[in-house]
């Protein structure tokens, strides 16, 4: 056991932990953006609320979710430990700022990561904590006629305070009663400052992953002439452009919709 302790206390071991947790968080982003695209479905939150209900009531997802929270904490703690030791390695700085050519994002990973940590705390407090532990969300009832596939939406008042969800079928009509997270999202994204914070945070995601994704492969030692361009391409286009743009589009679209209401 002490051998592993020594390995992960070395400079390279700590970097390995940063790389592995970072890549795990990257894969989570793909799932998260995919599921949340349901927000763009114009069905008064039926698909999105059902999806949120599924995520919170399917046990394997719960296990992965707690691994995810652990990965966020470990990534942040090790970043702090490494940054402190990096500062100690140069107690007296230079009078002339270093002009060596290095990308802006690679030199500001700590700043970008701090913005992201603040964002994650606010984001989880507003949606995750409210959904799971704060009993302030209302419920929606979706009645779908299975013959015509038409859905009627209405508010639902639970009969007992600990009501979670229910799915039943009555005479060819499917009744789905779930927590209305969609309404919470609509109200949160109707505030301009909140939308602005989200867009800034997604900018931070973009620049953090522009360096972070390819950097993880370098740390793992997986550098090969044939695969390097593919890693750079995926890191740049998928993780630094497409995913942050899709995420940022969600609050922006909801804000524009809230203006016309």
């Amino acid at each position, binding site marked *: 056991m002490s051998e592993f302790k020594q390995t992960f206390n070395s400079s*390279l071991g700590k*970097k390995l932990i940063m790389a592995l947790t970072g890549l795990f968080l990257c894969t989570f982003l793909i799932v998260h953006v995919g599921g949340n695209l349901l927000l763009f479905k114009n069905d008064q939150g039926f698909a999105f609320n059902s999806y949120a209900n599924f995520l919170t009531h399917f046990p394997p997802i719960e296990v992965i979710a707690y691994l995810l929270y652990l990965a966020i904490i470990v990534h942040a703690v090790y970043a702090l430990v490494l940054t402190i030791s*990096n500062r*100690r*390695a140069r107690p007296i700085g*230079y009078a002339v700022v270093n002009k*060596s050519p290095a990308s802006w994002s*690679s030199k500001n990973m700590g700043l970008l990561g701090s913005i992201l940590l603040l964002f994650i705390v606010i984001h989880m407090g507003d949606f995750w904590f409210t959904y799971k532990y704060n009993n302030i969300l209302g419920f929606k009832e979706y009645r779908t006629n299975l013959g015509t596939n038409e859905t009627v939406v209405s508010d639902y008042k639970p009969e007992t305070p600990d009501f979670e969800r229910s799915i039943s079928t009555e005479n060819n009509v499917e009744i789905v009663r779930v927590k209305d997270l969609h309404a919470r999202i609509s109200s949160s994204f109707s505030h301009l400052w909140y939308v602005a914070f989200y867009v800034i945070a997604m900018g931070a995601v973009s620049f953090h992953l522009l360096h972070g994704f390819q950097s993880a492969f370098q740390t793992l*030692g*997986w550098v090969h002439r044939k695969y390097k361009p593919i890693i750079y391409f995926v890191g740049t286009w998928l993780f630094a452009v497409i995913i942050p743009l899709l995420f940022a589009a969600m609050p922006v679209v909801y804000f524009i919709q809230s203006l016309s209401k």
Partner: protein
Amino acid sequence: MNLTLKVWRQKNTQTAGKFVTYKAEGISPDMSFLEMLDVVNESLTRKNDEPIYFDHDCREGICGSCSLYINGHPHGPKKAITTCQLHMRTFSDGETITIEPWRSAAFPVMKDLATDRSAFDRIQQAGGFISINTGGVPDANLIPIPKVIADEAFNSATCIGCGACVAACKNASAMLFTSAKITQLGLLPQGQPERYSRVQAMVAQMDEEGFGNCTNTGACEAECPKEITLNNIAFMNNDYFSAKLFREEQAHDHTGGE
């Protein structure tokens, strides 16, 4: 050429240093940076001032003695050269040049611009060698080596251990130097027996010396006078994780059936 120099002056490791401004007058653009400092030092000596102390030896870019962090760049603004190969025509007449020593906890300033870089020697001594018994001279091409391996090993072997990578790195990390030494030996057949013990010993020594941790910014690669690449760091990481996580360090005990 007439120049203004802002030079870091520090009596010894224990005392604090400060910048002192000097005039460098009548400098030929064909002089090297170190020759310019020689001229300044001559005038200082004539005035009975203490000359500026800086490291130098071969003055042809192969020994790794000269250092100097010039205007925000280790070895000055030009690519792939050492300070001794930097010519004054790189600068313009009347320019102010700021000269600082390498800044790293592991490279304490000894005097003025000279730092103690023996941390690099200790990393090298921890495993940067091949243990071999001497004997008759083997035939030159006895062991075939693929050209791509030989080329990579030679590229890594060009590292002169000047410390510009540490000076350029925002984390004062020595991973480019350490990885070049590990890769040079780890690629070649003669380096194989000690390959996985070497990488562990050298990384452990590097950590002990108090260098920072690489964040893959690539500043070291850009400033290296010998153009050592980040690929060396990837090679070191790969060998290190392989050694620590997957390789057996001892033979299995003989526990077979009776």
